[in-house]
Structures are given as structure tokens and as C-alpha cells.
């Protein structure tokens, strides 16, 4: 098992290195002065010149690449044009907010998606199944950013039920930092008022982000249950008289969850992408809104930093997915 983890980490490194290479090439392949590109449109000439020395753009391309990589390796993702602070510190500050949002959305999607998937498989080809399938195909077609705005418009602006943006109402200061996730930290600190307020802020963005993975999990679970029901061992388990409840509840469900569980891991990575837009709409202070901000101010260094960080998180998630898959299905262990 440990050998497998090491091997997967080793496999992830060339992919990430490739990513660094790709971004480096793109910066240099773009016409115009790389320093200007990196510094961004609003940068002052001095800053561009400072960047040119910093990265040594006048030096041969290979040497520049090694400086770029060594700088990344040393953990410094460059200086943010806007805040003049180390990008890496800013990213670390903002990560917990993104995790809180994405984990909440995934939990929502799983808690609703799997049961609905099982139900629509159980009522195969009857009206409930068709209804749920329309809902799931519709869910996949809804643009999450449009849904976010519509939710914000109806629930916040019109009905004023839920807060329009941010993680906490004005005037409330966050609970002591434990996980960085306000909802959890406030529970740990026993501050239920903070918990209620933070949770209220989380609902709309969380739901907007959860719709697409929810629809996908529903489809995968339905397909998994249906394919399990066609298996020989389910026929055998009926032939030897397993009571219906035991057959469906214990065996068919357990077999059907193998694929959806691995899909949830991959979906976690995918919604990191759509989180970028949702955070921007709800001013959710996570990596996403940071990336959108850096786009607006053409601060390429910040955008690339976010891409690399998300890349690393994505690689870790994929390894985790394989571990979960191995834990769920004993046959996988042998192939690792």
C-alpha cells in the first residue's frame, strides 16, 4: 500500500512539472515582453523592470526556466501585483474558504445524489425514474454561474431570506482558527450564533456548486445499481433465498457504491473549477475569487499560482480516490 502511494506521487510529479513547463512556454510564446505580461497591464514601468531583473528575462531561455522552477520549488509563487504580498501566503490564507465551500457542496451532492440514484434505479422505467432522469439531465445543463445569480436574485434580493454574499455578516468576527472552516470552527468553539450565520452564508453558493455533481452522482449511482442488478451473483443470491431487504440493502447497495464512490473523488476535483465563478459571484474569499480578481487585474503570476496549487490538490485527490477504491474493492489491492 505504501509503495503504491509513493509510486502515485512519483507519477504526479512529471505531470505537475509539465504544467509548469506549459505555463512557462505560454508566457514566453506570447508576443511582447514577458516581464510586461507577467507584471500585468496596470503595472508601472519600474515594476516591469524590477520583474525583468527578478526573473532575468534578458538571460538565455534555459537559464530563465531553471530560475523560474527553482523559485517555484522554494515555495515562493511570486509577488502579487495588487497586494505586493507573497502570493503563496495569500493562497494559504484563502484555501480553507474554498475547501469549506467545495466540501459542503460535495456532501450536499452525495447525500442527495446517491439516494435519488438508488430510487430511480429501483423504480426503473417508471414515471419516477423518468422524472429523476429529466431532473439530472437538466441539472447538468444548467450553467452554475447563471444558477448562482438566479438564486442570489430570488432568495437574497427578492425574498431576503439568505445573505447575498461573503462568509459572515458584517460586525461578526470569525471563531478561533482550527480548521479554517468557519462552520466547523464555530461549532468547535461552541458559538452557535456564528455557526447559524456562517451556515446561512454557505447555503446558496454551496447549492449552486452542488447541482452539477449532484446530477452526475445520480446518473452514476442509477447506472451502477442497474448494472449490479444484472449481475450473476445477484441472481445467485436470489436463488439461495436471501431475503429481499438483505439482498437489496446489504449486497446490491454495497456493490453499487463502488463506482459512485470513485466518481465522487473525481467530481471533487471538477467542482474546484466551477468554484472559481461561484466564489466570484458570492464574494466568497477563496482561491476562486482570488483567481477571478487576478484575471480582472491581469495579474498572470497569481492566476498561474492558483492553477499550480489546484493542480497539486487535484493530484492528491486522485491518489485519495485510488486508495478509497482499493479499500472498497479487494481485487484492486493486488493490481497496485
Amino acid at each position: 500500500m505504501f509503495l503504491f502511494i509513493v509510486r502515485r506521487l512519483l507519477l504526479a510529479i512529471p505531470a505537475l512539472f509539465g504544467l509548469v513547463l506549459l505555463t512557462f512556454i505560454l508566457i514566453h510564446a506570447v508576443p511582447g515582453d514577458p516581464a510586461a505580461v507577467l507584471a500585468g497591464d496596470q503595472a508601472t514601468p519600474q515594476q516591469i523592470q524590477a520583474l525583468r531583473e527578478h526573473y532575468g528575462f534578458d538571460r538565455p531561455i534555459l537559464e530563465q526556466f531553471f530560475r523560474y522552477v527553482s523559485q517555484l520549488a522554494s515555495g515562493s509563487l511570486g509577488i502579487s501585483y495588487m497586494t505586493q504580498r507573497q502570493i503563496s501566503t495569500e493562497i494559504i490564507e484563502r484555501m480553507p474558504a474554498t475547501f469549506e465551500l467545495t466540501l459542503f457542496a460535495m456532501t450536499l451532492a452525495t447525500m442527495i445524489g446517491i439516494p435519488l440514484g438508488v430510487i430511480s434505479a429501483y423504480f426503473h422505467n417508471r414515471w419516477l425514474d423518468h422524472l429523476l432522469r429529466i431532473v439530472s439531465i437538466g441539472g447538468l445543463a444548467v450553467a452554475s454561474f447563471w444558477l448562482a445569480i438566479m438564486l442570489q436574485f430570488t432568495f437574497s434580493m427578492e425574498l431576503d431570506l439568505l445573505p447575498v454574499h461573503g462568509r459572515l455578516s458584517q460586525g461578526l468576527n470569525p471563531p478561533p482558527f482550527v480548521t479554517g472552516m468557519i462552520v466547523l470552527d464555530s461549532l468547535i468553539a461552541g458559538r452557535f450564533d456564528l455557526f447559524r450565520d456562517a451556515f446561512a452564508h454557505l447555503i446558496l453558493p454551496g447549492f449552486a456548486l452542488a447541482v452539477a455533481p449532484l446530477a452526475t452522482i445520480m446518473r452514476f449511482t442509477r447506472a451502477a445499481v442497474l448494472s449490479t442488478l444484472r449481475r450473476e451473483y445477484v441472481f445467485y443470491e436470489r436463488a439461495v433465498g436471501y431475503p429481499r431487504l438483505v439482498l437489496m440493502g446489504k449486497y446490491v447497495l454495497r456493490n453499487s457504491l463502488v463506482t459512485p464512490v470513485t466518481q465522487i473523488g473525481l467530481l471533487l476535483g471538477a467542482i474546484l473549477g466551477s468554484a472559481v465563478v461561484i466564489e466570484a459571484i458570492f464574494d466568497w474569499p477563496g482561491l476562486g475569487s482570488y483567481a477571478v480578481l487576478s484575471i480582472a487585474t491581469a495579474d498572470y503570476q497569481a492566476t498561474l499560482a492558483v492553477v499550480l496549487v489546484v493542480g497539486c490538490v487535484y493530484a492528491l485527490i486522485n491518489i485519495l480516490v485510488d486508495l478509497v477504491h482499493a479499500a472498497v474493492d479487494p481485487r484492486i489491492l493486488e493490481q497496485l
Partner: protein
Amino acid sequence: MSDVILEARNLTTILGGKAGFLQRARPQTRAVDDVTLQLHRGETLGLVGESGCGKTTLGRTLLGLLRETSGEIHLEGQRVDGLAPKAARRVRRAIQYLHQDAVGALDPWWSIGRTLGEARQLSGVAGDEAVIDRMLGAVGLDLAAKTHYPHQLSGGQLRRVALARIMLLAPKIVVLDEPTAGLDLSIQAAVLRLLQDVKTSFQLTNLFISHDMSVVRLMCDRVSVMYRGRIVESGLSQDIFAAQRHPYTRALVAATPRLSTRVPAVALDGDPPGLGQDIPGCAFHPRCAFAVDICRTQKPELEQAETGSNVACHRWRELAPANDDGGKQNGHVSGAAPAYQTAR
């Protein structure tokens, strides 16, 4: 010696074992282990054994799809070994292969006519559409089949198309890989009849790979029994079925369901060896009732017994050959007496 059309000398093929980039290496197995074998012109040689004994691997190595690890292959007197699959197939055009999965051997998106046309094109043989029509007739299919697609024909018909296709390549030797596996009795009989007729009318030599001893007894002139990559006993079909010397051959013949004998004593215990475990000495010793110390240490070589059969067992002289009374009523059906028979 009669006209030996194909010969293998000390042929060995090792499968698995290549460690991919950071992947765990699959266990190495000697699927074909030091096999020496002759195929005489016009005969049907049976290669028989249970799953995992290497008979299919041997067939594909002789064909050239698999490259042998060591040993020589002589086709019509010329050395043809030591070649990558593509080159090997070009040099060994005289050998063709009929897949066990006849349905899968045809591209589902191509009509039968186009598939056969492609085969004729690949063969480089001159002749027009008529060649295809004649071949369809030879395998008992009507010409209307040409416009059909594989999924519109039955398993039996597809088997005939697959045979017609390789016959268009004008082979001298056809390797038949389990042609009757999984078939019902009536279809099996029709398929065996088809193979018999085609062999006679095109003067073919067949390598008949099967796990079913009763079919081998019916179709083959000579038989080689394989266990764990090695030939443990070989000889004329009548001799082998009349008197088996190697303990494994005895078990195989005894275990084959017969119409006549009632519940036979269990001939063999234990399970066929898994891939990868290397068994010292004679690979059969863990399951052999007659195993002694030498069997556990030294690999037995094929020796010629007085009846002309060869057997690879340290104790074959001491063990009285088992005879098989159940087969009395079976006449040997091998068409024209093959020319080699005189060279006992």
C-alpha cells in the same frame, strides 16, 4: 522420414515479466518450455491439454504472432524463427490461424463480401470475385451471405465465413484453435465435417488444438499431450488412445466423459498449476500418484517407447500402460491414410 512440413526444435516462449514504468512486473512463466515437434504434410496433429498448458501459446508461436524466446522453427525446410510478429507473418504465409471465437474474428462493421474481398487482396492471389464465390461454396454458404453483416448471421455461419477467409490466403497449414469449444453436439458434428472436407479438398495439414480428448481421438492422426508448457506424451492417435503411458495422459483420457463407461475412479486430484509458480523437476509431480524423488528434482525428457510413441516420465517403463476399453466402437475417421504412416 516423411515430408515434415513444419518442425520446432527446443522451442521456448516466456510470457509476462516486463516491468512497466513503475508498474509491478507480472510473474514470468515459461508458457512453452523446450518443445520439439514435427508436423507431417497432410496429417492432423492434435495438441491437447487443459487450460494453461500452453497449447494455444505454442500454436501462436508457430504462427508467428508471438515471438519465441529461444529454439528453432523450420517451415518447409527453411529456418523462419527469430522474427518480430510482422516479419514472421510475412515469412510464414503458408500457416493460417482459425480463431476459437469465430464470431469475434470478423469486423462487425464490414459486410461478409468486403471482408472476403480484403482477404483475397491480402493474399495477392490473382482471380476475381469468382474465387470468393467458389470459396463460399466450398464452406457451404450461399452467395447471398456476401451482402450480410456478421450480426445478421448465426454462429455456425460465421465460423464458415472465418474459415473461407483464411482459405482465400491459400494456406498449406491451418492452426485450428479449439474449433468445437462450447458448441452443441449437432453443431460440433457439422463443424468437424466442414473442417474434414476442407482439409481433404485443399490438401491441408492441420494443427488441431483442443482440450476435448474424444474430439481429438476422432479427428487427429497423431496427438501431443501438453502439461505446463511441455509435451509429456506424443504419438499416433491409435497408440495413445489404446495405451497411455504418462500418468497425466491416463488421467486426461479417464476423465473425458464417455458414452460407455459408468462412473470412473477419480483419475487426478488437485488443481492445474497457477501461472508463475515455478515447479522444480517434473511439473506434474505434485499431482502424480507415482511421483518419486527423482521426479521432484529432474525434468524428464521425451524418450521413445517401443510402440513409437514418446513419453516424458522417469518411471514410464515400470508403469503398465493404461488401456482404454471405452473406445472400442470408435472407428478412426481421418480421410485418406496420410502418407507418413509407413514411417513408424
